[in-house]
């Protein structure tokens, strides 16, 4: 089975994240880049499926040069090879153009199964998997809490507000996973060393038949008009519990008409 895991480099949530004042896009230099946490679950699930059913796991990322670090981590976990879509023309791409560019690469490299984390910790749109399924005409099995593959068919538990849906589909499919699905492995020293020798193919947009007019800031279907730091919340009232903390909190709720 040919599995492609999409990973994204995002700014570390433990550091200050910013937008750039010149073009309102993410400031990638302001914070350390890390693998989007939810994508680690996607990598783990891909590796598990490979272990159970055989095949190959390819890591796909789109991002500037330094996103290579993200690829190395996935390779160190055990992925076989990587494709890095990197081109200045992609800067400022929104979800629509990102899904278009990644779909073009996926068409070029081929896949039975594409796996993503359910959202990124920076943009948090949660739309990329659905968009890829739409663009590729593949089955959409998103928000998976459990994945089973059997002879060209796939079944998942799709998390819902009321519990879950059991969903079945033929391959090829695009799936996204939630963090409850597994426990991502830590790369071993051996894995880290082996990752250095694994093939990483870097593609520019022309290599994947990506139309420059469909990507980048100028082509984006939506735009950030302006932004500002959120005003600090006005300091609240903090009381120490002297045996009446619950009563005092109730007074506060009553003053706000919640009770």
């Amino acid at each position: 089975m040919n599995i492609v895991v999409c990973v994204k480099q995002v700014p570390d949530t433990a550091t200050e994240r910013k937008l750039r004042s010149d073009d309102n896009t993410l400031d990638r230099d302001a914070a350390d880049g890390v693998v989007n946490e939810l994508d680690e679950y996607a990598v783990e699930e891909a590796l598990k499926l490979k272990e159970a059913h055989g095949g190959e796991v390819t890591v796909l990322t789109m991002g500037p040069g330094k996103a290579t670090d993200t690829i190395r981590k996935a390779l160190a976990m055990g992925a076989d090879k990587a494709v890095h879509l990197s081109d200045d023309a992609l800067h400022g791409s929104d979800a629509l153009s990102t899904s278009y560019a990644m779909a073009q690469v996926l068409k070029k490299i081929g896949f039975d199964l594409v796996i993503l984390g359910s959202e990124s910790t920076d943009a948090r749109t949660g739309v990329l998997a659905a968009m890829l399924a739409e663009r590729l005409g593949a089955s959409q099995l998103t928000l998976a809490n459990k994945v089973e593959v059997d002879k060209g068919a796939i079944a998942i538990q799709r998390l819902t507000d009321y519990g879950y849906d059991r969903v079945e589909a033929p391959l090829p499919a695009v799936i996204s996973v939630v963090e409850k699905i597994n426990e991502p492995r830590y790369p071993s020293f051996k894995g880290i060393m082996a990752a250095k020798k694994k093939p990483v193919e870097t593609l520019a947009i022309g290599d994947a038949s990506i139309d420059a007019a469909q990507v980048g800031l100028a082509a984006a279907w939506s735009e950030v008009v302006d932004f500002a730091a959120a005003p600090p919340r006005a300091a609240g009232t903090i009381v120490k519990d002297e045996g009446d903390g619950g009563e005092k909190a109730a007074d506060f709720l009553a003053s706000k008409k919640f009770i």
Partner: protein
Amino acid sequence: MSEILVLVEHAEGEVKKVTLELLTLARSLGTPAAVWAGPGITPEAKARLAEYGAEKIYVAGADDIVDYVVAPKAELLAQLVAGTSPAAVLVAATAEGKEIAGRLAIKTDSGVITDAVGLSEGFVADQSIFGGGVNVHSRVRKGTPIVAVRPNSTAPVAAAGAGTEEEVSVTLSDAAKTARVVERVKQEKGARPELTEAAIVVSGGRGVGSAENFSIIEGLADALGAAVGASRAATDAGWYPHQFQVGQTGKTVSPQLYIAAGISGAIQHRAGMQTAKTIVAINKDPEAPIFELADYGVVGDLHQVVPQLTEEVSKRK
């Protein structure tokens, strides 16, 4: 004024509150038209949609609209967009709502904005990003604005619309019928509201201490008619089911009132709740970062404070 399509969120024939919020929002920007996807519309549901301003109610009642994951609803909306040229399409910013919006955006070659917490003239959306640290105005530049709006962003206000019903038939493509829902498993029973659309959320964290102790959190939630949430520390420890996790990798909530008990307020948690209108924190540690956000904070042991609060709430109701 142009029509604004509002995709109705419904369960067991009932319209969810978020839809009333979206109709209220749509009314300020155009003429709301509700879109009911799937079987099971009731006279009560129609009356409710009209009560909150739906001039038209498009009803696509075929079973197959809900038999597959997301794609049929996107095809239904795409067909309505082509046929009615609406000024915008609004959906709830739930996980499924956002996926529908994403597929619709591609089908209609339109921009999409997710997680809007406000919408003003020209469909300029307010968003709160990076865990609530930055406020953004954004807008769609191409096609029909498609906006996923967070529940609890707008107070629903009734204002009668005509509620004229129009049946819609959709012929689904084969591509929309690949991922079939073969079973729906309801795990959570009981009267508590859904986490993402509850007006009040009471969440417990590491300080709760055990799965059994979550009954303290549930007790307060039930007294307030609230949903229960949990921090990642609590769900990772297995004290509360994962689908109730609030935070960066869990659910985003934006309630009128958020009560955090035994939650330190790490940035990962704040990312999921920082747009709550009023925040109350209860924590033993006076240095807990959650107090920086709190409108009201009690430094104390939640095992004493929460039961007392629950009792007071019940007494004063």
